[in-house]
């Protein structure tokens, strides 16, 4: 069963509603005991990096998550800041991240020198260009998702980039390292495109 990690951040009920519409069973984990049996994991997130890390620590689910993802190799999908905390660290905060993917999180203005005047946050609906190989984006025609962020996930290895988005320059809007997936946009708030992506994750 897919388990939604409820560490106090993010649209748990929005995910529940979408999976209910799709007739796909999910459950919500509020503590390590409820998380333990997860076959697939969704790590949602809205907010700032340090806020998300401290909430996750405080939830008591951090060790269990590490074990499920790193030892038991359960597929996981991180959303927005839930994706960003999978990196080693972020320019947005001081706390270390989960370090599941070799990556840093950086401010979008730092990506290109000519971007210093970029309007931030990157807010609204934008196109997502997936790499051909991925099933996460299957059956999604002209993928378009809702973004709301000022920082982006920069993997050390380009191999981990699953999809790109252009906001005065390309950045990784979706990443993958084996069974670990992350998307910068909000599939739970992206109408039919988001629903299909969440369906795809359930079928991976």
């Amino acid at each position: 069963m897919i388990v939604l990690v409820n560490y106090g951040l993010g649209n748990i009920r929005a995910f529940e509603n979408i999976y209910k519409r799709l007739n796909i069973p999910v459950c919500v984990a509020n503590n390590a005991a409820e998380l333990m049996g997860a076959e697939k994991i969704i790590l949602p997130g809205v907010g700032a990096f340090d806020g998300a890390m401290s909430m996750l620590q405080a939830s008591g689910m951090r060790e269990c998550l590490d074990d499920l993802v790193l030892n038991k190799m359960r597929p996981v999908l991180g959303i927005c800041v839930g994706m960003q905390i999978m990196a080693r660290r972020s320019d947005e905060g001081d706390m270390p991240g989960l370090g599941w993917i070799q990556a840093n999180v950086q401010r979008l203005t730092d990506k290109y020198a000519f971007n210093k005047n970029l309007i931030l946050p990157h807010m609204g609906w934008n196109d997502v260009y997936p790499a051909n190989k991925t099933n996460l984006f299957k059956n999604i025609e002209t993928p378009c998702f809702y973004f709301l962020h000022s920082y982006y996930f920069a993997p050390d290895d380009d191999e981990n980039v699953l999809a790109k988005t252009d906001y005065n320059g390309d950045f990784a809007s979706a990443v993958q390292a084996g069974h670990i997936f992350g998307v910068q946009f909000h599939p739970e708030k992206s109408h039919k495109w988001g629903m299909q992506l969440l369906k795809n994750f359930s079928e991976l």
Partner: protein
Amino acid sequence: MLRPRIIPCLLVKNGGLVKTVRFCQPKYVGDPINAVRIFNEKGVDELIVADIDATAHGIEPNYKVIANLAAECRMPLCYAGGVRSAEQVERIVSFGVEKVAMSSAAIERPELIAEAAKRVGNQSIVVVMDVKKTGLLRRYDLFTHNGNRPTGCNPVEFAKKAEALGAGEILVNSIDHDGVMKGYDLDLIDQVYNSVSIPISVVGGAGSLVDIENLIKRYGIIGAVAGSFFVFKGKYRAVLINYPDAEQKERMSAEVRNQSTEDRDKRAGKRG
């Protein structure tokens, strides 16, 4: 390509959906959850829900209603009304609300913007400016408490301050144009738009898709917010929710490309 956002704004009073004209004459138009369901089907870009009781009566936001709305929305949600502390902002974000808007409290105590941004990130902090022309010189002035209290604050100065303190978006609301449906207050929008480099949304006065299209042509990436236009139709102002379909939206934003502040300056230059 990033697209401009076309955003319905729903006003809530006593748990029911209402519509106002120049911030007055609230008229019951339905149940907010039903409206959200219809907007889900219409594929709206974002939704703003403003509780017009909360600020005016100094009461806590209705967290139960907010949580229900957030769960129902398959599009991003911005909540406004009665938000006075960083703790409240954090709580509302924890329900899965993407953005929390502050107005009166942020004008009275601007540090609130910084405190809230530190808790939930800049991207989730919206500062709403309710603006009305006042005095013999018809200067723009910020108002609070549903347009009842003038503050003597200049909107451009306050927008800059809000940006510096960490606001992620400014929502400019023209009280003079509210519910009148004769077009946006472009003079006001020009002034604010050209003074900050965070996203801007505007509300007050949209009466047709042409008004929205003109706004997008003029500014490019902007949030075009409308209340009356999306919930009323026809000369009898009957209740009917309408919203442009995907094709109309594509057509309306066809000319728009990603923008930097430089592009904005260029646009401003062209206008000037």
